[in-house]
C-alpha cells in the first residue's frame, strides 16, 4: 500500500505506434528550428540570470563613482552606467525581473480573462452581455492610459506595474475564450457529457477549457512580449518599478539622456536585451501556434 511500491509497476514499457497528441506536438515543434532556438535562448537567459550572483564579478547595484560611463571593455562587457554600475550585470539580473513582470502579469490576465470568457460563452444571456460590455469598455479605453492611471492611483512599484500590465491582457483573453466556448458548447462530446449528467462546472473546466487551451497558450506566449514592452513604456513615462532596481525598461529610459552624448552603450544593450527577449517570445509563440494548428501541416 505504500506509494513507493506502486510507482514502477505503473509504467509499462510498450512501444507507441500511434503518436500521442503531445508527441505529435513535439514533432511539429522540433520541425521549426527557429521556435526551438528561441525557446532555448530564453531558457539559457533565465538560467544565466538565476546564476548571475555566482558567475559575475559585479553585483547589479555595486556603484563606483570613479568609473562612471565607461565604454564596453574586457572587464565590463557592456560598459558601466552613470553610477559606475556594470551594465552587463544589470541586464542579466534584470532578465529575472522583466521575465517575472511579463510572466506574472500575463498569467493574472489570462486566468481572469479565461474564467470570464468561459462563463460568458457558456452561460450566455445577461452574463455574456455584461462581460462583453466590460471588455468593450476596457478595449476602447486607451491601454497605456489605463496603466498610467492604475500606477498613479496605486503608486509606482513592482506589484502595481504588474497589476497595470495584467489589466491590459484581460479583455483579449476573454474574447478569445468566449468565441472558442461558443463553438465548443455545441460540440458532440460536450453534449454527450451533458447528457451523462456532468455539472456545468465540470463541463466548462474539464471539457471545454482543454479545447480552447491551444489558442490561449499561443496568445499567452506572444502576450508576454507585449507586456515586457508595456512595462518599458511605463518606465519611459516615469511610472515604472523603483528606479534603482535593474529593470530593462528603466535602464533604457534613463540611459536615453546619454544617447546624444555618444554614450550609446547605456541604451544599446538594454534595448538589445528587450528586443531579443520579446523577439524570442514572439517566434516561440508563432512556432507554438503552427504546432498546435492541425490545419497547418507543412508535410
Amino acid at each position, binding site marked *: 500500500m505504500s506509494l513507493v511500491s506502486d510507482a514502477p509497476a505503473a509504467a509499462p514499457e510498450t512501444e507507441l505506434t500511434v503518436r500521442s497528441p503531445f508527441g505529435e506536438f513535439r514533432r511539429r515543434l522540433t520541425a521549426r528550428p527557429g521556435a526551438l532556438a528561441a525557446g532555448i535562448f530564453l531558457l539559457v537567459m533565465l538560467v544565466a540570470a538565476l546564476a548571475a550572483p555566482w558567475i559575475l564579478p559585479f553585483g547589479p547595484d555595486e556603484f563606483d563613482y570613479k568609473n562612471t560611463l565607461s565604454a564596453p571593455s574586457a572587464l565590463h562587457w557592456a560598459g558601466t552606467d552613470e553610477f559606475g554600475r556594470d551594465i552587463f550585470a544589470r541586464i542579466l539580473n534584470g532578465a529575472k525581473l522583466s521575465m517575472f513582470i511579463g510572466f506574472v502579469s500575463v498569467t493574472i490576465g489570462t486566468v481572469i480573462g479565461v474564467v470570464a470568457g468561459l462563463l460568458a460563452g457558456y452561460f450566455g444571456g445577461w452574463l455574456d452581455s455584461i462581460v462583453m*460590455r466590460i471588455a468593450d469598455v476596457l478595449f476602447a479605453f486607451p491601454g497605456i492610459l489605463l496603466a498610467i492611471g492604475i500606477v498613479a492611483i496605486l503608486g509606482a512599484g513592482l506589484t502595481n506595474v504588474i497589476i497595470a500590465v495584467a489589466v491590459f491582457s484581460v479583455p483579449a483573453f476573454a474574447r478569445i475564450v468566449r468565441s472558442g466556448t461558443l463553438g465548443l458548447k455545441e460540440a458532440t462530446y460536450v453534449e454527450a457529457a451533458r447528457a451523462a449528467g456532468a455539472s456545468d462546472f465540470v463541463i466548462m473546466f474539464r471539457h471545454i477549457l482543454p479545447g480552447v487551451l491551444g489558442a490561449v497558450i499561443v496568445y499567452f506566449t506572444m502576450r508576454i512580449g507585449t507586456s515586457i514592452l508595456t512595462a518599458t513604456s511605463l518606465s519611459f513615462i516615469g511610472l515604472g518599478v523603483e528606479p534603482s532596481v535593474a529593470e530593462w525598461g528603466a535602464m533604457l529610459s534613463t540611459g536615453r539622456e546619454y544617447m*546624444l552624448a555618444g554614450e550609446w552603450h547605456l541604451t544599446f544593450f538594454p534595448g538589445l536585451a528587450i528586443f531579443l527577449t520579446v523577439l524570442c517570445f514572439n517566434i516561440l509563440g508563432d512556432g507554438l501556434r503552427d504546432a498546435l494548428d492541425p490545419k497547418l501541416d507543412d508535410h
Partner: protein
Amino acid sequence: MLQYFLRRLAALVPVLFLISVFVFLFIHALPGDPARLLAGESATQEEVEAIRQALNLDRPLFAQYVDFLKNLASGNLGTSLRTGEPVSTMIARAFMPTFWLSVCALAWSVLFGLIAGVVSAVRRGSAGDHAGMFLAVSGISMPNFWLGLLLMQFFSVHLGWLGTSGFDEPSDLILPSITLGAGVAAIMARFTRSAVIDVAREDFIRTARAKGLRERVVIWKHALRNALIPVVTMAGLQFGFLLGGSIVVEKVFRWPGLGSLLLDAINFRDYAVVQAEIMLFSLQFLLINLAVDMLYGFINPAIRYK
C-alpha cells in the same frame, strides 16, 4: 440590415454611458491637485487656494459629474483648467496632426504588410519567408521610443535630411509614421500571411489551379481577394488604435496631436480635457468596430445578422 444597424447603434449608448462613469471616477481617483499643479511647487498655500477658488474646484464630486453629463448632452465639452480654452477647440486642433500621422502610418504599413504577407505565404518555408517574418516580428519587438530616438539621431541629427520633431511640413511625417507603423506593419504582414495560407487551402483555389490558371493569377487575384476580408478588418481595428494617438511616439517627436494633448492633460490633471478625449477615443473605437462589422455584410453576403 438597417434594423440591425440601428439596434447596434442603440447598443452603443449604454456602453458610452458606462465609459463616462468609468472615466469620471477614474480621473477623480487619481491623486493630484490641479490647483497646486497650476500654481507650481514654489507657490505658497494662499496662492494655491486663490487658484482653486478661481477654477471652481471646490464643488462636490457628484455635482461635477452632473455638470459634465449635462454639458456632454448639449455638445459642450467644457473648458480646459490649464489654458482656459474650450476643450473642443483643443481637440479639433490636435485631431488633424494625429489623423495624418495615422493615415501615413497605416498606408505604408498596410502596403508593406500585404506584400510581405503574400510573398511569405506563397514561398512558405523559404528563406524569403523566414526573413520577411523575422522582420515582421522585429517590428513588434522594438520599444517604440527607442526606435524613434534611433531614427531621429540618424536621419535628423547625423545626416540632417529631415526635421527632428514637430509638424511644420509634410516631410515631418516620415520618421514618426515609420516609428508608429513598424508595429502595425508587422501585425499586417503576419495576419495577411496566415489569411492567404488559409484561403489557399480552399476548394475554389484548387479549382482555379486545376483550370490551369497561372500561379500568379491564382494568388494575387483569387486568393488575395478572399483573404482581404479579415485583412481589411484588421486594418480597420489598427486604424482605430492609431487614431487614439500614441502617447509615446508623439512625446518623442513633439507631435502636436491627441496623444501629446492627453499626456499634458493627465500630467496637469486637466479633467475636462482627459474626459473629453477618452470619450472621443471610445466613440471612435466603437464606431469603427461597428463599421467593420457592417462591412463584413457587404463583402460577404453569406453572413447573416441576427
